[in-house]
């Protein structure tokens, strides 16, 4: 049928199917910024269009329903690449991160201002109520709306949106435009999905319906006969090679324990077969035609079940070590029925007892420490399974270009991705070109190679392009989640609160595959114990295989779970001693000059090193929080049902992996005196490209506009370990800094020659010149000279950064919460985060990183949880049932304060920011709940029911019947 409507001010008459969705039609016709995160559930709002003046979800409209109506998309706001007032304001306040939701937010605020030129915060909340964002914590959207509202009256109006730092510097520490924000706010071609060509084949996967089973028969004959089907992969025709999906530096501290497809399926949603077809319909039909018989095996659904004697074994194949010897007493001989498991080096594993990794160590003598203690406490804390939930699910587009394979990836680890795909395909890395597109949210989950290798293999095999995008359900059940953990903490202390001994027992669940099996749980200890230097410490970590959804990296890594356990336990100790929890923190926290011997035993698969703390801003952070929250002064509730309490926690993270990570950048002078920066770093929406451009501009004495950047492209930019472990600013930023410094030397030399002066007498000067004692010469003139017939050639320089220096970002998070004593509901009234990120290089974006982390962590503290049934099936793999925080869940008063320090090694003193901010919410909220109602909640999320249960206000038998008993009471 033909549908006629007005789109962006122009009449259109387009052919569409009677049942075709409007979203599909518009994307088909090239209107790209209609994203999709909820698969048409209507809960994400990323496909927003304005329909007769109102924002609606285009995924919940038929194209036919547009007949006669007036529609516009974000393209309507930016004629000829200009920016509308709302778009400009979003950009100015630093509200553009990954950009996946930004066009929809722009439309929501644009229509809001149309009906209310000076909107209240309540109206802004309402306007954004249908749009999910995982990056920003929504806070800066309010600032953007208010800024745009002021500009309706005064178009020239501007304001200071964030504090600025380091007045002696021109770019670093200043609020500057994020380098990719214009393009993202206009909704231009940026993500993997925007690269797909019309002739691309679609790839769909058949997932296992069982948590644990052996495929006894698989027949794809009927499926292959479906017209349009190109190829079908199963364990029978996929590469034999085993590998590890974690994008970690080689050799990885994680087992190679998966094949592309295995005869053995180990979790619900585990790959059984992949269908490559010329249309989605053909692929779906083929999936349905695949015949599979399973021998269902008993499933292991918890670490307790995994550790129990006689437990079903999840990996029964041969265990091999590339180097080093297996753990004493572990079995290595396989049963001949399963794929092998290969460890690059020993990590305390014993797969035939479901043990994927283990570690233990400590300092001093905990037995003596507990003997000296006046009081001890011992508690267990449970971090249930939560999902990263990037708005853009895992997605890849692969194609052949000449004799090479091109991978358009949404990844944090371009080079690790290339290495892993090369291994699986058995081809050289020189045959593979990985292009990191804009990433619609990473947060750690895109550190793993979750689907790229399947598409890559099929493209390499068939020569045809493949588009593979996870559905939201697949993203929940078959990508990566935060490791569920049970952490038992035992503390001993003197009466005055001084710790005499700490024990942490971590039991982590890695799911059926062991990516990050050692390092995530290690972080639960290595990023928390150094906060509380204590002479006697013991940690013990065991990571088990289970048949539950696969775990992996999520912003904060294991530190988030570890902080919850250790900081809550410390507050429980304070309560037992009758002391203020912060007094006990103060008595035990790390101070400048402390020697952290514990770190020597907390390496990640290799020896760690003890560290003397040179800088620590925790004292300042704690003082600021106490002052701002009037800590210690009682808060009276004016409503008997609601009690108010406060909590606080100190937190830390790292800035990359000293001695393991490496980053490169290259910068060259173009013939007009501008620059081109090639950074290996992967900007996943955090502003890393802005960091690298900013530090290079600072060194080269130019404005940021003089430097164009591309990044994360394995062909045109140099190697970088990728964006994880909080390494972006510290490693990739420093690589850009070093490249710029090296180029600076060359510029001075070339400039001095032109000026006829000694290089020692010359320096760079703003804007863009070499200045000597007698005169100056512009970069353009230098470039012209060096690239002319008698020139020395194009000026370019490389920077390579490695270090053994450990730059620790610290923080303190303060919470004031109200708890309803009848319902158990918790409302966050105030959330104040104090963060030391060294020199905040992008202050506005740093604040956005903190807000985003706070709201995500409020999410897992209060609402988010993947729930499995007794067969290991996740029953809430969608946004209606798994509650990602919306704009309504933003704490009433959320503030972030940057406490600057200057790291001696970081670029212009910068350290990491985003991960650390995940670690404060769970302990601070748990402590606030206790302060309010006197009950400890030790299982996240602290749902209303769990809080009421902890208060003893709900009969306890419901705890066991909960969720397992559907019978009506």
């Amino acid at each position, binding site marked *: 049928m033909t549908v006629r409507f007005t789109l962006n001010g122009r009449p259109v008459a387009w052919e569409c199917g*009677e*049942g075709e969705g409007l979203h599909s039609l518009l994307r088909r016709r090239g209107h790209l910024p209609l994203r999709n995160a909820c698969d*048409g559930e*209507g*809960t994400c709002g990323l496909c*927003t269009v304005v*329909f007769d003046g*109102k*924002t609606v*979800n285009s995924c*919940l*409209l*038929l194209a*036919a*329903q547009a*007949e006669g109506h007036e529609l516009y998309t974000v393209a309507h706001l930016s004629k000829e690449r200009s920016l509308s007032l709302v778009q400009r304001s979003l950009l100015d306040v630093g509200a553009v991160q990954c950009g996946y939701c930004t066009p929809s937010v722009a439309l929501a605020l644009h229509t809001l201002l149309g009906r209310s030129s000076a909107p209240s*915060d*309540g109206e802004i*909340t*309402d306007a954004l*109520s249908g749009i999910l964002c995982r990056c920003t914590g*929504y806070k800066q959207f309010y600032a953007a709306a208010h800024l745009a509202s002021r500009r309706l009256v005064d178009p020239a109006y501007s304001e200071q949106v964030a504090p600025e730092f380091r007045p002696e510097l021109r770019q670093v520490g200043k609020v500057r435009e994020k380098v990719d924000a214009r393009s993202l706010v206009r909704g231009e071609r940026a993500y993997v999905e925007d690269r797909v060509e019309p002739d691309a084949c679609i790839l769909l996967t058949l997932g296992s319906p069982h948590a644990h089973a052996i495929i006894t028969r698989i027949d794809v004959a009927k499926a292959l006969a479906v017209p349009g089907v190109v190829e079908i992969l199963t364990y029978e025709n996929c590469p034999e090679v085993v590998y590890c999906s974690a994008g970690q530096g080689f050799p990885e501290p994680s087992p190679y324990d998966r094949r592309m497809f295995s005869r053995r399926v180990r979790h619900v949603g585990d790959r059984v077969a992949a269908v490559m077809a010329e249309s989605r319909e053909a692929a779906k039909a083929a999936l349905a035609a695949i015949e599979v018989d399973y021998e269902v095996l008993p499933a292991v659904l918890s670490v307790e079940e995994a550790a129990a004697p006689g437990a079903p074994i999840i990996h029964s194949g041969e265990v091999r070590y590339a180097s080093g010897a297996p753990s004493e007493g572990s079995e290595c001989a396989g049963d001949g029925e399963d794929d092998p498991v290969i460890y690059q080096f020993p990590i305390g594993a014993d797969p035939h007892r479901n043990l994927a990794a283990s570690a233990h160590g400590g300092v001093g003598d905990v037995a003596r420490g507990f003997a000296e203690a006046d009081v001890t406490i011992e508690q267990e804390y449970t971090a249930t399974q939560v999902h990263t939930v990037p708005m853009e699910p895992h997605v890849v587009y692969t194609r052949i270009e000449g004799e090479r394979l091109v991978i358009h990836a949404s990844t944090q680890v371009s080079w690790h991705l290339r290495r892993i795909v090369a291994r699986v395909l058995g081809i050289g890395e020189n045959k593979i070109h990985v292009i990191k597109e804009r990433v619609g949210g990473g947060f750690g989950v895109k550190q793993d190679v979750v689907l790229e290798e399947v598409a890559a293999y099929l493209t390499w095999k068939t020569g045809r392009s493949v588009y593979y995008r996870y559905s939201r359900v697949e993203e929940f059940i078959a990508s990566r989640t935060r490791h569920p953990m049970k952490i038992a903490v035992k503390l001993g202390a003197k009466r005055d609160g001084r710790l005499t001994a700490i024990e942490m027992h971590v039991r982590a669940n890695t799911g059926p595959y062991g990516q990050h099996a050692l390092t995530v749980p290690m972080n639960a200890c290595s990023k928390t114990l150094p906060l509380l230097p204590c002479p006697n410490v013991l940690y013990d970590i065991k990571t088990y295989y289970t048949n539950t959804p696969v775990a992996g990296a999520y912003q904060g890594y294991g530190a988030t779970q570890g902080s919850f356990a250790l900081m809550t336990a410390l507050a429980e100790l304070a309560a037992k001693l009758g002391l203020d929890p912060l007094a006990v923190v103060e008595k035990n926290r790390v101070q400048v000059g402390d020697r952290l011997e514990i770190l020597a035993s907390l390496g990640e698969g290799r020896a760690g090193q003890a560290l003397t703390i040179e800088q620590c801003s925790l004292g300042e952070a704690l003082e600021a929080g106490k002052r701002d929250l009037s800590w210690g002064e009682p808060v009276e509730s004016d*409503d008997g*049902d*609601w009690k108010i309490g406060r909590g606080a926690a100190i937190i830390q993270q790292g800035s990359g992996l000293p001695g393991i990570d490496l980053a490169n950048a290259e910068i060259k002078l173009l013939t007009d005196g501008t620059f081109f920066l090639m950074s290996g770093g992967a900007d996943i929406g955090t502003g890393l490209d802005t960091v690298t451009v900013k530090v290079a501009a600072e060194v080269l004495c130019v404005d940021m506009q003089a430097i164009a950047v591309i990044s994360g492209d394995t062909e045109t930019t140099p190697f970088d370990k990728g964006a994880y472990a909080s390494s972006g600013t510290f490693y990739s930023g420093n690589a850009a800094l070093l490249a710029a410094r090296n180029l600076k030397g060359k510029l001075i030399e070339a400039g001095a020659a032109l000026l006829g002066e000694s290089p020692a007498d010359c320096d760079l000067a703003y804007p863009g010149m070499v200045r000597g004692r007698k005169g100056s010469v512009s970069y353009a003139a230098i470039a012209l000279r060096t690239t002319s017939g008698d020139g020395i050639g194009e000026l370019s320089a490389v920077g390579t950064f490695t270090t053994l220096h450990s730059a620790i970002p610290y923080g303190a998070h303060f919470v004031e919460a*109200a708890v309803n004593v*009848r319902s158990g*509901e918790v*409302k966050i*009234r*105030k959330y104040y985060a104090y963060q030391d990120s060294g020199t905040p290089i992008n202050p506005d974006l740093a604040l956005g990183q903190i807000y985003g982390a706070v709201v995500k962590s409020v999410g897992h503290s209060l*609402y988010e949880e993947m*729930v499995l*049934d007794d*067969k290991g*099936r996740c*029953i*809430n793999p*969608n946004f*209606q*049932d798994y509650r990602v925080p*919306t704009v*309504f*869940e*933003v*704490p*009433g*008063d959320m503030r972030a304060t940057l406490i600057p320090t200057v790291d001696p090694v970081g670029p212009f003193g910068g350290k990491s920011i985003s991960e650390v901010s995940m670690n404060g919410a769970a302990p601070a909220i748990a402590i606030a709940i206790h302060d309010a109602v006197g009950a400890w909640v030790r299982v996240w999320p602290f*749902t*209303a029911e769990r809080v009421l249960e902890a208060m003893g206000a*709900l*009969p306890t038998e419901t705890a066991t*019947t*909960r*969720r397992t*008993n*559907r*019978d*009506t*009471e």
Partner: protein
Amino acid sequence: MITQFLRPASAEEALRAQKATENAVFLAGGTHLLSPALRERAMAAVSIEGLLPRDIRISGELLSIGALATLQELIESGERGQQGAPPSAAAGARAAGGAAGPVAALARSAPAAAAGIGGPELRLLCEAASSLANRNLRNRATVGGNIAANKPAACLAPALLALDAQLRLVGGSRPSVAEYLAAPGGLIETAEVALVAARSTAYRRWARTRSDVSGVAAAVSLRLAGSAVSGVRVAVTGVRSASGEAGGGSRRAEADQGAAPAGGRVAWGGFGAARLPEVEALFEGRALPERREIEQSILPLIAASSDIRASAAYRRLRAAQLIADALLAAASSAAAPSAGAGSSAAGSLGSSGRGSPGGGAPEAPRGKETTR
């Protein structure tokens, strides 16, 4: 999956087309029919766009809501009504009735009549509508569709039941909402609520988050004479009467109806909208006891089931609390109309963040207004 798209010229033609076409469904906003739950079902869409009333008006003693009014339009009509109507003018002024006309016009030109519009009936419906806390969806979802989709956690149904609302179907039949929900069918033209003098209403819900579907929702309507309440109506979603005899389509969640949910765990295992006659009878003609006593007396009369949102025990507890809160709020606003809307959100505590980013969450902690 929509296999066919029909665009009839009139409501009557739509009705005929629906009867004549296999698997035909009426398509209004589309937020339900086009959702993933129904995506695999082959359906012929009969568009009813422009064929049915969309306005919200008052005619004499009748509040009438066009089936094609969106939930957002319903809310905005309530907001306009409130702006035009000082709350003190409430019940008495309504007796004056008013000429038929759109709400907005009434609010401007006939404040006495408009006072009725901003009154307890519309306020209850508006609050119920705003529990769909997603503006993009409210801009499409229609009043008729919300009723006809008949989802267990539908937002309008408990409010309509508490108001003894009636539907007018194309072709003239006039089932009550309770009758319709028990046996849905036909094409809804308008929903109608009789304006009752001295009525007071309140709406309360519990959900994990503001935009989650309600775990429990309760709508209450009553009249206050002296200290005694009468005409008590209590309608809920999420729980049901313990006697199992509740009227008005007490249904298990969709998730419960299809394949047996795995391991007894379901995402939403509540019950569909129904009145609770036993609860109503407890208080009819009496002065309301204090909160704790109301809760205790309600608790044995309601049943619930467990799902991932809550255990049955928690759901029952919350239902008893919310019904008690709603009853007391309604009685208190009836006793002191100048104190403000009985069904308005209050809660001094949770609203403390209002005015700061994110703090504008309309779902403030509740239960305070009865004592203020």
